[in-house]
């Protein structure tokens, strides 16, 4: 055998955690999405209201119900962050009108479950309405927008968000076009700047335990958000192994190559866009039921930027990253009271600094660092070599050692500190 000069094989670190640490974000990501990590996480998260309650009762924590409200906000933003991560991190589409889909879900639910139009749908028909309306709007925006290049798509979705905003603000009276009034005089659809009040809460069946009682409002919706979060996480994890997931990753890595391999880029992008919009819409619906109203001030552009900060901080394309980012961005202003006023100053600075110094975020597998030109493919997200999709998540039976061996073998280049 001809001797080939190779970099010396790094010595196997003794401890498995040490090896995991050396594996870098791709390995951390894979480890954090293992079922044996995720299932305890969700179980622990589900008991969190009892834990805070325990501390309030026994250790004199102040706030009481307030803690559950923070948890609820965290869970809601985690849902939004994962929805946005799907469209930005997976499909590489910069959807700046994202929060409009959250608003659409809220308003759609508020319209069919309040006195505004005198409809009071039950839970499932209301959910179906929200899903259908979200899909409708996603198609309306997605079909034209997804044919455009990255930054045009960003501006078009932004324009869509602004049009939706204007509609919600102005549809408290019948629209008038060319001096012709559409609809009767008293027509008030969106409630204008007031929004829609007294939206029905979810009516859960009596057999559901632990949620019926005075003052359990926040806790109930916390579990609902958390349940929906689990659904999103599970769906995303399953999706990565399918043709769809592989297509998304292929498109994100190199659109031209994906096209050449016969991937229908438009179709898979539309699917990502639609799935993200539906997830945002359902989150909006739960939120409207939770806070009892759909208020236009909750859906401004700063909200979109906030969710962007969450996924960029956590790492584009990373599921645990998006959840961690959502929790960090939600909890930080509560912990540092002085921060409240400067919330957006700090977070926008953070966004800029992360983009410049660590664009892949905490756990990102998608790198948007500069890279050597590959001639011609300058589209959207480009990634450094990362875990191939089919090896990124081991199945339930695999041991941790096998996982690390697998990820260690494909994470490249070898850690530089091994000289």
């Amino acid at each position, binding site marked *: 055998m001809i001797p080939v000069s190779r970099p010396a094989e790094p010595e196997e670190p003794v401890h498995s955690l040490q090896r995991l640490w050396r594996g870098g974000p791709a390995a951390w990501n894979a480890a954090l999405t293992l079922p044996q990590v995720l299932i305890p996480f969700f179980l622990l998260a589900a008991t969190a209201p009892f834990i805070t309650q325990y501390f309030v009762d026994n250790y004199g924590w102040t706030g009481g119900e307030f803690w559950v409200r923070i948890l609820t906000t965290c869970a809601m933003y985690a849902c939004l962050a994962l929805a946005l991560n799907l469209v930005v991190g997976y499909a590489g589409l910069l959807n700046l009108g994202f929060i409009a889909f959250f608003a659409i879900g809220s308003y759609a639910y508020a319209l069919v479950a309040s006195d505004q139009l005198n409809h009071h749908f039950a839970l499932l028909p209301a959910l179906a309405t929200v899903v259908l309306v979200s899909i409708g709007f996603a198609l309306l925006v997605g079909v034209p927008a997804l044919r455009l290049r990255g930054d045009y798509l960003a501006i078009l979705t932004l324009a869509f968000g*602004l049009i939706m905003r204007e509609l919600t603000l102005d549809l408290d009276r019948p629209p008038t076009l060319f001096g012709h009034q559409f609809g009767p005089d008293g027509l008030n659809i969106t409630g204008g700047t007031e929004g829609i009040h007294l939206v029905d809460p979810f009516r859960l069946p009596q057999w559901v335990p632990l949620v019926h009682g005075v003052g359990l409002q926040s806790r109930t919706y916390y579990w609902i958000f958390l349940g929906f979060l689990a659904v999103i996480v599970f769906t995303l994890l399953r999706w990565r192994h399918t043709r769809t997931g592989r297509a998304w990753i292929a498109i994100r890595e190199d659109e031209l190559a994906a096209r050449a391999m016969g991937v229908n880029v438009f179709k898979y992008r539309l699917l990502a866009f639609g799935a993200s919009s539906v997830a945002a819409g359902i989150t909006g619906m739960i939120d409207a039921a939770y806070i009892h109203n759909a208020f236009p001030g909750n859906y401004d552009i700063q909200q979109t930027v906030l969710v962007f900060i969450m996924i960029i901080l956590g790492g584009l394309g990373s599921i645990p990253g998006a959840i961690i980012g959502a929790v960090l961005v939600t909890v930080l202003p509560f912990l540092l009271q002085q921060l409240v006023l400067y919330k957006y100053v700090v977070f926008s600075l953070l966004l800029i600094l992360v983009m410049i110094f660590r664009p892949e975020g905490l756990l990102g597998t998608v790198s948007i660092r500069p890279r050597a030109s590959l001639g011609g493919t300058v589209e959207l997200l480009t990634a450094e070599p990362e875990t191939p999709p089919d090896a990124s998540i081991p199945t339930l039976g695999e041991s941790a050692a096998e996982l690390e061996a697998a990820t260690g073998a494909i994470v490249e280049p070898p850690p530089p500190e091994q000289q």
Partner: protein
Amino acid sequence: MEHFLGLFAQYLVNGLETGSLYALIALGYTLVYGILEMLNFAHGDVFMVGGFLGAGVAGVLVSQSGVALLPAPLVVLLMMVVAMAGAGLLGVGIERFAYRPLRNANRLAPLITAVGVSLLLESVVQVQVSPAPVTVRSDPLIPLTVLRLGGITVPPSSLLLFVVAIALMAALDRFIFATRFGSAMRATAQDREAATFMGIDVDRIIVVTFLIGSALAGMGGVLYGLQFATVNFFMGYLLGIKAFTAAVIGGIGNVRGAMAGGLVLGVLENLGGGFVSTAFQDSFAFLALILVLMLRPQGLFGQAQADRA
């Protein structure tokens, strides 16, 4: 019919006024896009900062009782100079610290940073200067008597806006198409690498581009403040997007197109708001944007390029 024509003419004039403001700001978007192929989201907020700088100068030089401490034209001139200089430097600073480190990254990275810079400027002004709209003490600076031309009324502030904007655009046009530096800018826009080979200092071109674009936006901020007598931290957002729309309508990267696009958009919006529906005036601009992007992504005056859509 006479009534209709009168209204039409009035909307047309109003449209040219707002349109010249859009054009002034659209130039910044189009210059930067032409050279860096990046969408400078923070540009609208540079316009906003310019407006606040102008308001600050007016606040210092106009006493509480509403008397200007210096001759009115001098105060207005000072507002313009301070705002243009301040906004220009701000633009250069943004480029240096937020965009330059990402210049060779892929398209998404600077776009996200730009969104961050935009939010940063807005929130700093909101927290440090004023969360509420700030009055621009323009009453002693600009006569309030409305000029009448036939049936059309024009406030002097709008006339000032229109004249200054057109003059600046003409000057910029000469600068780009008739000077050595301008041809270096055009060369850089065409092919950055080739321009480097020709001995053009691309970094300098980019700095000057940001300086010019931002200074124009600063001037836009002053003119806006003089016309509406109020500025707020949020004003750059909507106006920035409309100006970007104007740049796209004119063909992004195309300087003359941006000027024309601004005027077209202003007129379109005013006619739409006047004749179709006042409530949805803003939506017309965005519908126009969506239609242009769909049907003619190279803009009304741009040339078709395979990779532009």
